[in-house]
């Protein structure tokens, strides 16, 4: 609840939330990977 409120996803459709979360997770994954490398 906090997460979707703070990122304002609360106001977007579930599909858009999925798009946003997948982008966020992939970017975070890449950043972690790059950090590790």
């Amino acid at each position, binding site marked *: 609840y906090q997460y979707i409120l703070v990122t304002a996803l609360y106001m977007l459709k579930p599909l858009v939330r999925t798009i946003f979360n997948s982008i966020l997770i992939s*970017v975070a994954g*890449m*950043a*972690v990977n*790059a950090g590790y490398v």
Partner: protein
Amino acid sequence: MNSRGIWLAYLLLVTMLHVILLSIPVLTVPLVWTLTNVIHNLVMYLFLHTVKGTPFETPDQGKACLLTHWEQMDNGIQFTSSRKFLTISPIVLYILASFYTKYDATHFLVNTGTLLSVLLPKLPLFHGVR
């Protein structure tokens, strides 16, 4: 652009853009810096110098409709702190990008071109010029 924390948010956004580009495995560091600079300048040019009007209704009888965001800032007063900050930040990014690309000619040309595209519209003599 004067409200509290917006400059910090802007710097965080540019930093986040750079980190995202850095974490793409295939990109080299010089390429990442040039891409950061180019994307930053493109977005800045789009939002500050291309889009006209306001994304909401304003009670000024449509006066803002024909002005870009940069021209609407501080009611058109030049050399305010926000304007100075937004003029200096692309220059700092350009200097960083030039340094990290080891002054390679190709990168230098691309970076200089995009820097000019966001610096020229900021000059007071281009205020309201189409």
